[in-house]
Each structure stands twice: as structure tokens, then as C-alpha cells.
């Protein structure tokens, strides 16, 4: 009987312990959920408030050419007093504006990025141990064409994370154009279709031009770069370079990228017709 009592006592203790643990866990998740929600509501209110101030400032930057960029940047630094959140919101806004405008307005945004010292915030990210932050930095700097950071971004091609290497690859193309792709043609980075679609996207968005020495790309030992080269020719509808793809296939008849290259050849031929 003692034996059974002992077991019963153990079962009850176990149940009581589990009830206590689960109850505490429930309270913790409950508090965390509502805390997160309230924090988000507060953050959104704050964001909306900051966004108004930033929009006013950026409106002045774009449409009041009488005011110098330096003066607006000073206003940003002294009157708005940029916190981390403000810097994030401003970067998001200027990135969006930079995509939408061309010419002088684009240049003013780029200058504001430097004068407001937002560029330093992006440069700091490049040294982060968190790879996601590094990507964020590369993206801001390359989108906003901060040329002095070229060497640092180039060095990220040797980052331990492949995802950062790919971003750096796109970053240097954004900074220096398609010549940079040719310069890095022997890089052994595996450019998957997703990365290639991103490269084609920036070529299109930034209205890059086809380099004269594009044939150099087809001397690459990296077959993903060959495929990218073919896709670039397709994008520019450069069927006068069709022979570059055809020659590659003659030399590499069993290449794994053959079906994709064949498809591009067909599409280029159709353009010709």
C-alpha cells in the first residue's frame, strides 16, 4: 500500500508542478503579447509623428532649390535630432525617393545622405557582426551611390556568409555599373536565379548600359556568370552578341546551363525575326 501511496503522491506532485509551470508560461506569453502590441502602437504613433517631420524636410530638399542641401542637413541634425528610429525612417524615405527621381533631384538626395551623416550610420552597419545589418548597410550605400565605400563593399565579397557576398556583388554593380560585373567575372560565387533576378532588376531600375567589352563575361569560368551574361544580352535585346552564347555552347556542349541558354538563344532569335 505504501508503494502505491508513494506513486500517487509522485503523480500529484508532477501534475501540480506542470499546472504551475504552464500557468506561469501562460501569464508570460499573455503579458508579452499585449506588451508587444502596446509597444507597437506607441512605435507606430511615434513613427507617424517623425514621418511628418521628415516628409516636410524632404519636401524642402526636393522642391525648394533655393535652400542648400547643407542647410537642410543641418536642420535634420540640429532640429529633428536623429535617433536610431528617425535615421531608419529617413533612410527608408530617401531610398524610396531616390528610386523615383532622376537628375539633379537624385543628386540632392545623395548629397543629403552624406551631409546629414546618415551615411555614417550605414557605414557602421557594414562592420556589424550581424550579417543582416551588413546587408542593410550595403543596400543603403549602394542604392544611394556612396562611391567612397566601394572598397569596403568589395571586401564583403569575401564575407563568411554567402548571402552577404551576393549582396556585395549586387552592391558593386550598383555603384560602378556593369563594368564591375566584368571585373569580377572570375569570382566563384554561385549566383542562383534569385540573385540573378535581383541583378537584372537593378540593371533595369538604374537604366545601366551594356558595356562594349561584354564578350569578356563569356570568358568566365563561373557558369552562373555566363548565364547572367546571356540574360543581360536578352534584357538589352542584343542579338548581335548571340554568337557569344552559341560559341560558349559549342565549347561546353554538356553544360548544365545549356537548357536555359538554349531558351535565351531562341528568345533572342525571335527578337531578331
Amino acid at each position, binding site marked *: 500500500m505504501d508503494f*502505491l501511496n508513494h506513486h500517487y503522491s509522485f*503523480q500529484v506532485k508532477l501534475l501540480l508542478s506542470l499546472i504551475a509551470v504552464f500557468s506561469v508560461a*501562460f501569464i508570460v506569453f499573455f503579458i508579452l503579447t499585449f506588451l508587444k502590441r502596446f509597444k507597437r502602437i506607441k512605435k507606430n504613433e511615434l513613427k507617424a509623428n517623425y514621418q511628418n517631420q521628415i516628409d516636410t524636410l524632404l519636401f524642402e530638399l526636393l522642391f525648394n532649390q533655393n535652400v542648400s542641401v547643407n542647410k537642410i542637413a543641418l536642420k535634420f541634425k540640429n532640429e529633428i535630432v536623429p535617433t536610431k528610429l528617425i535615421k531608419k525612417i529617413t533612410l527608408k524615405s530617401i531610398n524610396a525617393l531616390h528610386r523615383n527621381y532622376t537628375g539633379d533631384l537624385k543628386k540632392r538626395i545623395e548629397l543629403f545622405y552624406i551631409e546629414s551623416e546618415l551615411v555614417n550610420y550605414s557605414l557602421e552597419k557594414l562592420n556589424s557582426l550581424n550579417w543582416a545589418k551588413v546587408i542593410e548597410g550595403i543596400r543603403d550605400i549602394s542604392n544611394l551611390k556612396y562611391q567612397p565605400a566601394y572598397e569596403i563593399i568589395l571586401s564583403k565579397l569575401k564575407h563568411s556568409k554567402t548571402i552577404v557576398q551576393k549582396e556585395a556583388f549586387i552592391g558593386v554593380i550598383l555603384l560602378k555599373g556593369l563594368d564591375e560585373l566584368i571585373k569580377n567575372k572570375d569570382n566563384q560565387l554561385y549566383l542562383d536565379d534569385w540573385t540573378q*533576378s535581383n541583378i*537584372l532588376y537593378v540593371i533595369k531600375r538604374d537604366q545601366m548600359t551594356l558595356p562594349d567589352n561584354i564578350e569578356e563575361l563569356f570568358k568566365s569560368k563561373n557558369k552562373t556568370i555566363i548565364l547572367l551574361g546571356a540574360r543581360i544580352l536578352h534584357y538589352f535585346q542584343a542579338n548581335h552578341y548571340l554568337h557569344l552564347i552559341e560559341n560558349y555552347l559549342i565549347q561546353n556542349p554538356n553544360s548544365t546551363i545549356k537548357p536555359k541558354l538554349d*531558351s535565351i538563344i531562341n528568345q533572342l532569335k525571335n527578337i531578331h525575326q
Partner: protein
Amino acid sequence: MTGIHWLDIAIHAFNYFILVFAISVMVSYLFLAVISAFALKAYHKKNRFVNYNALLALPDAPSVSLIAPAYNEGKTIIENVKSLLSINYNNFDVIVVNDGSKDDSIPILIDAFELEITNEIFSPQIETKEVKAIYRSKNPSYSKLVVVDKFNGGKADALNTGINISTKPYVVCIDVDCIMDKDVLLKLAKPFLEKSEKRIIATGGVVRIANSCIIKSGKLIKVNAPDNWVARIQVLEYLRAFLLGRMAWSKLDGLLLISGAFGMFDREIVIESGGYNTKTVGEDMELIVRMRRYMIDNNREYAVQYIPDPLCWTEAPESYEILRKQRSRWTRGTMETLWLHKKMMLNPKYKTIGLLSYPYWLMYEYLAPLIECFGLLVTILFICLGVLNWHFFGLLILMVYIFSVMFSMLAIYTEEATFRRYTTLSDLRKLVFIAHLEAIIFHPFTVYAAIRGNWEKIKGNKGWGEMTRKGFDKTNK
């Protein structure tokens, strides 16, 4: 204590059995939840900067056929098809397969989309019921639309017909009445573009409940927690299953189910492995298990991917009768799939799916309701005999109840920390409130439905059961 030694020992043994089973279920849920949390965090970190529109720049983006089987969907089919045609992607077509509808679906489609019969010849690679006609539109605006009219053969047969008709390398199998995110194909296609050594054979996404949500012109405008309690409880169920369950199974490479409402497949592998099985009501789960088994049996490297973004919104049953039919069918589908692939059980050749996923599904998805029912019957017997230890019983029920509420709260927290689709405080309160009732009013019902599923299987019921839907147009003006 009864004073009868052998009876006391039997009661203790029974108590231990129930306790150990309950704790093992809870530990497995928590284990999966922890893995999901890490996987979700990694997913968000990796995808927070992704510009899905970049994919549109790729001239040879994966070609996809959206296959939507339709049976008596005449009332809503125009809006549903228009919604599918407006998806943001550059390389897709929509194949609507009318599975011998008894209503006027075909005349409605012909009229709305200016369809005409084509003389297209296709070679069916999967056996299906006879195709009556294939229609295409005269209007170039609807050039992406193909409508297939066929004799009734069930959902699996209709999907197989769509797979036969498709000329694209990838197929997305959906329910025609689901509301899709406009970027659904961009998000589903991404894993196929990132492939390296392993061939991606399928990608699944999260299905969410659309009841009480605001939907206009086939697009989700605002997410609300459902007003109906039955539907609202299913929101919690789906959150737990998709965010805390399947995400983990995907991470463990043991995902056995991609929802029938929404999944993208490598067409070649689907055909090689025989297409959807028309003899089971769990054709979605059966296909994934068979495709995985096919790849392993043929020593081919493969992967099944899972995307935790809420991309597909569906209407959940709001009445207990419809829900009972749905859950009974799910039970029969699970039974049939597990039986068809019993060879995989604890078979090291099948790695995670043989050693972990299969036993888990058998134990905690299929057998759990039966064990619960058995426990309940023994408890009733103990009450009748006057030997029930009410103290132990009360504590056990309390522990299970608190775990259930806590786990739902964890799912709500995960949603709040990740996708945050329920934006109002009122929605959050509604979900937390219903989490307290679920274990009392809903769970016993699902156990009952699972038992009915077993009974129907024994009786030889092979049907789907009538699945009447209320329709989004009636809930949202």
C-alpha cells in the same frame, strides 16, 4: 484507494499511461514550437529585405500553372477567376477545371470570359475521367485562362486533369474559392530559384481563415478575427498548426502535408510519382508522402520547402455539422495515407519522415483521439464502479486545460511577434478569450469527429460529404 490490491495497481497503471501520454504530447508540441520559433526568426532575418518584384525582371522566371478545380462554384466563379488572373507574376496561366458541376458554371464562364472551344490535343500522363472540352478566351485580356470541362471524378481527379493539361514545369494546386495574396507566386517561386544541389519538389504555404475578413473584388482588404466562435477557434488551430507545427517539420525536413488549398509542385515529379491518388480523401497529404517516398526510393536529392507568410485565405466551416464532416474526412485521409505508406514506419531508409514524422502522425494525429476516447470510457467505468480518484482526475483535467490555453497563447504571441495580421486590440482580445473556451467546447467535438471518421472508414464511406460554404460575398458587402 479501493483496498483491492490488483484494482489499485490497475488504476495506478492507467493513471501513469494517461499521464505519460499527455506529457509526451505536450513535450512534442513544445519541442516543435521551439524549433519553429528559431526557424521563423531565421526566415524573417533572411527575407526582411527581399524585393519580390525583382523576380519579374527574370525573363525565364519559373513558368507556373495555377490549377483550380471547381465543383458547383457558379455563384462565385467569375470573381474567383478574376482574382486568380490578377496575381502579380510574369509567367503563369490559370487552368480552371470544371469537375462535372451540376450548376451553370460552364455557361457562366463562357459568357464572362468570352470562351470558345479549342482543338487542343494533350496527351494525358495521369489517368483521369474524360475531358469534354477545353476552352480558351477570344479576348486577349484573358489569354492566360484555360477552362477544362470534364466528367465528375472528384477533386484529385480534377487536379490530375489540370496537371495533364499544363505545359509548365510547375503547378500550383489551389481551391478556387481561396483568396490569394497578390504576390503569392513570387513568394512560392523564390525557393525554386534558390535551389542548388537539391531539387525542390514542392513548396507549401500558410493557409489562414478568412471568415469576417473584408474582401473586395477577390482581394483581402482587412483581416478580422471571425465573429463566429467555431470559425474563431479554427483561427487558433490554424495558427498553432502552421506557425508552431509545420514550420518545425519543414526545418526538420519531415513535412508530410502541404495543404490541399494551396501548394506548388514540380510537375515532372508529380507525374513520375503518379499524380494525386483519387482513391483517398486525403489526397493532399498522400501526394506529398508519395513524392518524398518516390525521391528517396530513386536515390534523388530533393527538398520540400515551406513558406510561413500568410498567402492563402480560406473560408472555415461555421457550423458544427460541416466541421464534423471536414474533420471526419481529415481523419479518414490520415488513416488512408498512413496505411498506404506503412512501409515507411520506423524505416531508417526514409530518414526523418520514416523515423519521426510518420510515427508522430500515427501517434499524435491519428491515435490521439482514440486514446482520449479510451481514457474517457475508462473514466466513466471508474465512476460507475465508484473507484474514480476525483482528486487525480481533476488535477489531470486542469493540467491539460492550462496547457491548451497556454499553447494557444504561445501561438497568438508568435503571430504577434511575426506577421501581425490581427491589427486591432479587439481581435487580440477575441482570440485570447476563445483560447479559454476551446479546450472545453471545441476539443471534445474534434475528438468526436475523429471517432466518427474512424467509424465511417470502417463502414466504407469514401465520400467527401457536402461542404456548404457561406461565401465571402455574403459576409462582406
